[in-house]
């Protein structure tokens, strides 16, 4: 089965490569996810706006050089975003509490179990925040942005194997640093 959304994206990208004024459609399509990702990393609205602006302006200027490698266009935008955030991280560290961003709602179990579940998830994500930058970025792109390994590799400028290693190390580190995090039976 062909992927209509992917075909549509290719058409939009081709048009934007030929004529920058067509970039608006790509902006409309991807603004929300890029802004959400950026916000999740910088946790401050003004900073998120600054970085998001930088991402899309860089993307617009670089459109003529963009090569479709068969991966989603968003992977390239994430790549620009990852770099822009990295630049910003050199001087800035997010300070907003984790629970302000990650929606820790879980459905189904009794309220006591939900509370325990939320608490555990919150603790895991708080440890993610302490991971080395590369591991943290890989985990966010995988678990928050729900991206494929190959797309994360593009976004981070690494090989898929390196991304797998980062994720494995990151999750392993979470296990090591969360000794109290045992399965809730």
């Amino acid at each position, binding site marked *: 089965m062909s*992927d209509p959304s992917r075909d549509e994206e290719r058409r939009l990208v081709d048009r934007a490569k030929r004529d920058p*004024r067509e970039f608006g459609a790509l902006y409309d399509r991807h603004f929300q996810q890029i802004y959400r990702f950026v916000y999740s990393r910088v946790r401050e609205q003004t900073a998120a706006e600054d970085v998001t602006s930088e991402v899309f302006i860089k993307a617009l200027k670089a459109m003529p050089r963009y090569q479709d490698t068969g991966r989603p266009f968003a992977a390239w935008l994430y790549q620009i975003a990852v770099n822009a955030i990295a630049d910003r991280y050199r001087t800035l560290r997010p300070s907003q509490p984790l629970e302000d961003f990650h929606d820790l709602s879980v459905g189904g179990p009794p309220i006591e179990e939900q509370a325990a579940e939320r608490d555990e998830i*919150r603790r895991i994500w708080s440890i993610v925040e302490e991971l080395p930058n590369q591991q943290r970025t890989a985990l966010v792109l995988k678990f*928050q942005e729900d991206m494929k390994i190959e797309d994360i590799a593009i976004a981070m400028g690494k090989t898929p194997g390196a991304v797998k290693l980062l994720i494995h190390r990151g999750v392993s580190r979470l296990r090591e640093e969360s000794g109290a995090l045992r399965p809730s039976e």
Partner: protein
Amino acid sequence: MSGEMDPELYDILGDPELIRIARKLSSASAPEPPLDDAFKSALRRELMAEAWRETEGKNAWWRRVFAPAGLAWVGAAAMVVIVASVVLYTTNQPVSTGPFQLVITSPQKDSGSVALRDPILVSFNQPMDHQSTEAAVQITPATTVAFRWSDDKTLYVQPTSGNLAPNTQYLVTIGPGAKTQGGNQIDTPKTFTFVTQPTASPSALPSPSPKSNGFGQQLTTAYPPTGTTYPVVWSADSSTVYFVAAGGALESVPAKGGPTKTLVADGASLPAIAPEGDRLAYVRGGKIETLTLATGETAELAVTPAPTALGWVKDQLYWGTNEGVYQAGPSGPTRIATIPPPNDTTAILSIAPDGTHAAFGRDTSLFLLDIASGQTANLGQVGAGTTFQGWSPDGSRVVYNGLIADMSGRTVSALPTGDVSWSAQNEILLGSDTGLFTVRPDGTGLTKVADGTYSRPVWAPDSSTFVFLRDGLWVATAPTLAPAPAATDQALAVVNAFMQARKDGNSDRALLYLTDAGKAAYNTGNPPLIPLGDSGFKRFYVLYAEGDPSTPGSVRVAVRMVFGHGNVEQTTIEETLSLRRAQATDPFLVDAVTAAAPRDVTKGPQVVGMTITAPKIEVTFDSDLVPTSVSSITLQDSQGNVVDATVNYADRIVTFSGLRLKAGAHYRLVVLPSVVDVGSSHIVTEYDLDFVGPAPDATSGGVTPTAAVSPSPSPSPKPTAS
């Protein structure tokens, strides 16, 4: 986030504890962050302005000549030589008395879909005198504009109302008064035209990101067994899945995961659960056994011939054989429908949930059997190889070969390829070995949910989860359903496709969007299905679309067709289409049409869009109006009386508010020739547009003129050189 496991991670993590932590990470979702819409819009404007600047730079002739970049230095050097040569040459020549060449261009020239927010851009090949050039600019339709220059050669013309008018062909003229900075004056007007998009559409929704390589949780590897497999069965409360494993063992597994439980050791087939969920029937040893789940008691019913399908209708057990459909009566099995012979290659495949019809196969053909009358309907071509894929939840539609048909066998809509499961919420899952999609029963809204293997999905009764086959039986949380578009939007999509087919001259395709009554209406030739004549069918656009309370479930759409030669638009014809659908999950079809007399395209303000809600009507014109003349625009009831309303005018839009329109009553918008635009033009004859009063609750959804996009992909023929 689903909280369920992405198979891609199994390879990476391996260790169950790592997988558990990964699952926790996935279960925390990221809500939408605070967002200032003004920022989003401002950034878009900034990007578009940058894009314009880039385009200008890209189109510079010297850059084209000396591209690619590797030639830049050579080009620059050559430029120096050329410029120096030109300077030397011109300084040693007498002053030229020949005609100078002023080239005026615009990237928007001939475009069929200029965005409303874009300024009109005019490029000159030499520096222009601002004052005389601005004075020489004429915009038709009459539009009040502001000017902005970039580098003396590029002029941005921005309507002071902020946007261009929708659905409008603009004619831009640079008159003879325009001078270059060198003092040369153009002697003949330069013109170009373009057409704008429909009303500014809302920001495109971000397309949902497909889950990476799948999601879900494995329930068991005991299903599917090798050999014959029978579809899984959900419990009525969506908590349990029943399936027939190897050797005919009937087993159950909790939908949230857990150990399987064997209900019947062997020999079971064709499981079917009662709608109340209290009894599970199956065929075993040539008998139908009914297991009461609460007590574990089993009742047996000896039947011949052997059942080929089993199903429940309310609390009544039905089954089918190669001879017909049966139910258990007080005195034993009763045949309630008979399949016409021959019966040796025939078998009932499934009984509809409402018990009115059954599907049966004969050789490779598929038929519907009306249980009450015994009438049959053929699905697809006899002998063409036809696959039964299921029923709609109410049993009124059958799915086969990727088609949805009604009980007469008439095709209602088509689905993309995939294994079909139709939920109680009327969302269809399409599973395959490579991905999972959702689609609405009318064939629209195809959305990719996930990559990976999602074979033979089966919705849970509550539509919250579904099972599917990967390496075993898996369960996953159902994708969030995209809200179904408003009925008017669905109707507009049909109108758009119907009109495009007519514009393409493709009558076969256009007929697909007509009911029998609609075909009869166009068969009269007035209006013609495929407009013919001296003038070409240039474009079309929707003036309004509204639910019609006088005929529940129907939508009225007024569409204007524009005819002309080259870039000259000459006449328009308006049709009001009435669209209906047999039931809410079917696509709309055009059922009736009324056509107005052709109108010549003349100067003067034209209505290019109208939104209709119960308390307020907005009428969009293509030109800026003289405000005092707006009083000549009225709403009238069916008796010709003017409807009381508060009338306001701003930015080409006349607003009638404080209305108390009666649902389903007929009204008319009347534009008199005394309405004047800022160019002092007026229409020659009165313009009328009929509509009906919307339902009282149609506060905002009465009209969505954005959905039907005029045929922008097919640009108008090149106009004659200006």
